């Protein structure tokens, strides 16, 4: 399904469900241009020039400088929560 969060258009796809956990893949329609360092106010576990991994209480999110994301092992049936997580990241990123 496609979705709009502010002006960031993306496609969010549930890629698997297993053992009560889900993965979501976010693919941006147009790449972002904001530097990843803007995400420093979040709990960044891994930081590299082209990607970082952000920890949330219920999942990890791998975020690329293009805006592409992988939401990892979020509890089952959490599409709404996945979109909230995306919004939190985008709010911090696009400040």
């Amino acid at each position, binding site marked *: 399904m496609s979705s709009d969060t502010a002006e960031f258009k993306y496609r969010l796809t549930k890629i698997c469900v297993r*053992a009560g956990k889900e*993965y979501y893949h976010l693919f941006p329609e147009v790449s972002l241009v904001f530097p990843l360092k803007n995400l420093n106010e979040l709990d960044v576990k891994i930081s590299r020039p082209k990607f970082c991994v952000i920890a949330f209480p219920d999942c990890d999110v791998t975020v690329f400088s293009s805006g*592409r994301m992988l939401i990892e092992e979020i509890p089952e049936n959490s599409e709404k929560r996945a979109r909230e997580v995306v919004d939190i990241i985008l709010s911090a990123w696009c400040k």
Partner: protein
Amino acid sequence: MNQEQIRKDFPQLNQGFIYFDSGSTALKPLPVIRAVEEYYKTLSTSVGRGLHRPSNLATKAYEEAHEKVRRFLNGSGDVIFTKNCTEAINIVSHGIDWKEGDKVVTTCLEHNSNLLPWLALRPKGVNVVILECSKDGSIDLKKLDDAVDEKTKVVAVIHASNVLGTIVPVEDISEIARKKGAMVLIDGAQAAPHLKVNVDALGCDFYAGSGHKMCGPSGTGFLYISKKVFDRVKPMMLGGGSATDVQLDKITFTEGPGIFEAGTPNIAGGIGLGAAVDYLERIGMNEIRKHEIELSKYLIDKLKGFDNTEIYGPDDLAKRTGVVSFNVDGMPAHRVAILLDEIGGIAIRSGNHCAFLLTHRILDQPFGTARASLYFYNTLAEVDTFINTLKDVI
């Protein structure tokens, strides 16, 4: 094998990414693309139905493609074209006259295509026995021998694992099954593209494969049926081409393998599959195998250099194909795959690979593995890029 020339045959290799996902589907060489294009440009009519010249030419080309696949498999039985390996196996599982108490023996190594069609028979009272395999994909032949009995109608096994690359001793399994009077179906989706197959020597009754995994067009597959069991399977679908005469009280069905291809088939795809077989044979299956062993060895040796990586499948290269599954400690397989794609432009597959029993029960990896699957158009230099990118991201 002139790899430089071979790579020129694959236009997609010029798109700037490394394709290590041939286990999902192989890239298509120009001769296959041209064969499909040529059909649509010059022969685009139905087959087996018209008296006009184009229909005769298309029929001849389509029938020749079947013959090419039969020769490629070294079989004395019949080949029918399907849309994929899954359909081929379903034709068998749906086509057998099952009785309550009949038995199917299969394994934890199977792809869903060779598991779900059998599990779906349980409501009919068919006993489906699923044998465990070891972590490297070995099947205990003694246990298989014990499991197969006089009630066993089918033994269904994969020829090469899509997760571990393990090459299964299907010839031994066929022998065990034959002694007990069971039919043998081999899922050759991951073997036929990579190994020289001789279905007569394997002694199997059915051999199913995916055309698209062996450089053929998408939407192509095949089912080989030996002469001795041909009458034990009824067609799953009936329609155009299934009958030579229909009256109110009597149907005269078509004789021969054509009855399994009801309706207008994927003619372009079938002709393209014939071109793919020609292409593979021009290179030589032994040459392809040799190159894949070299690539796999190089990749596995390099992966062993990481202290936080687990590699799955047999240690003996002679017992595996070019499928190399691995996991990185503390890093989900899906993350590894997306990192390689986004950072290095490298396409691999991640997850359970439609083999849930294997990844979950045997490997204890609920979210599966990262899988690089190599083919003859891949190079050692691409493996180096893969390894260097992996080093950068983990």
